[in-house]
């Protein structure tokens, strides 16, 4: 089973983060909280960008971090998909190259086919030859989603996926995101400050307040 088990504590500057939760396979867990409460930090720690002082993080049997066993996998070996708030598309690569670069298949033709499939799924295949700066925010977001999916991660993490979008782009993303979340079989973490968004996309919600996790009574 590919579930996600997270339990760690860390101090960044004066901020103390101490979280513990479990996400089942196919479950979409919402992490709700205001900015500065540790939501993004939690995602970055799971991805391996930040190393916690103690705890453990595992996906199924795959241990990403375990302070007692001395395990701390580098980011590139964790196989987790993280959607950055700023999308983090590579500006010097075309849309197609952005999506292709995360696919591990050795055959270039196969890589291209998989990338095109994911771009089509996100309804953005027509822009494959463009550079990221030639796209709107919503379109860039869809490319970032396609790139994340194409790398076939064991876990999806979405960091405020709607925060930088205007109303129109939000609607444009909505249908694609819903489809994506339904198709993805692994665990999903969805971070947001907006209770409405979390209710809409998540099967269960936890709130983060000042670096600590609290249960919400919003099981669906």
């Amino acid at each position: 089973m590919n579930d996600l088990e997270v339990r760690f504590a860390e101090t960044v500057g004066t901020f103390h983060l101490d979280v513990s939760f479990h996400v089942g396979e196919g479950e979409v867990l919402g992490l709700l909280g205001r900015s500065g409460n540790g939501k993004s930090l939690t995602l970055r720690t799971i991805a391996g960008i930040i190393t916690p002082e103690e705890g453990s993080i595992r996906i199924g049997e795959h241990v990403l971090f375990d302070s007692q066993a001395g395990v701390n996998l580098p980011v590139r070996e964790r196989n987790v998909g993280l959607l950055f708030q700023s999308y983090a598309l590579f500006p010097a690569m075309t849309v197609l190259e952005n999506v292709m670069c995360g696919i591990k298949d050795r055959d270039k033709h196969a890589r291209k086919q998989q990338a095109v499939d994911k771009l089509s799924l996100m309804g953005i295949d027509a822009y494959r030859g463009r550079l990221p700066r030639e796209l709107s925010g919503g379109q860039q977001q869809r490319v970032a989603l396609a790139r994340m999916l194409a790398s076939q991660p064991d876990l999806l993490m979405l960091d405020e996926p709607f925060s930088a979008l205007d109303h129109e782009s939000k609607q444009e993303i909505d249908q694609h995101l819903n489809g994506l979340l339904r198709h993805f079989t692994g665990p999903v973490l969805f971070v947001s400050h907006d209770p409405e968004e979390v209710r809409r996309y998540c099967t269960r919600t936890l709130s983060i307040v000042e670096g600590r996790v609290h249960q919400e009574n919003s099981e669906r």
Partner: protein
Amino acid sequence: MFDVSPLWVSLRASLLATAIEFVAGLLCAHKAMGLTGKRAWLLDTILTLPMVLPPTVTGFFLLVLFGRNGPIGKLTGTTVIFSWQATVLSATVVAFPLMYRAAKGAMKQVDPDHIWAARTLGFSERRILWKILVPEAWPGIAAGAALAFARSLGEFGATMMVAGNIPGRTQTIPMAIYFSTVGGDMRTAWIWVGVITLVSAASLALMSRLSKGDA
């Protein structure tokens, strides 16, 4: 008959030096980005030193290292001192910090999230350098290379120490200018002054054109 060999000696030395500085500068800048604290400071100091030392001092160190009785001379059983390779060696070492510092400065401007995103996608550090950092920092890197080329072309002090002034072999344009001026041959000096000013100005024009890309 006017001897044009200093032009070819100079171009060979500065083009080869720029190619070496380019690759070594990128690799060292990438390495330096991953270091913190004392080790970062130490590497930065060693790699920048040739920029602030008098070129004759750099040349002196090269003589000691690469001379027949120096550690590298003993190791290889031969010496590059007073050969055309010495013109490449001195030009490379003296101009290297310009390439290294420009590359490091430009690569530090790359959005860290791009680097992290690449890592989550499984990129190795070497692939991040060539596929993310170099393309995104290209204007600064190219400008650094143009500047390093111009500096290599004008290299005099260290070259004098390790390569000497052998016409047709190690006599570069700056060397030709110095010795024709000392020898009273002002016409030859003027010609070479004109040539080197033109080429240097062209490199700087190229540099400012390349740097505009990041505006």
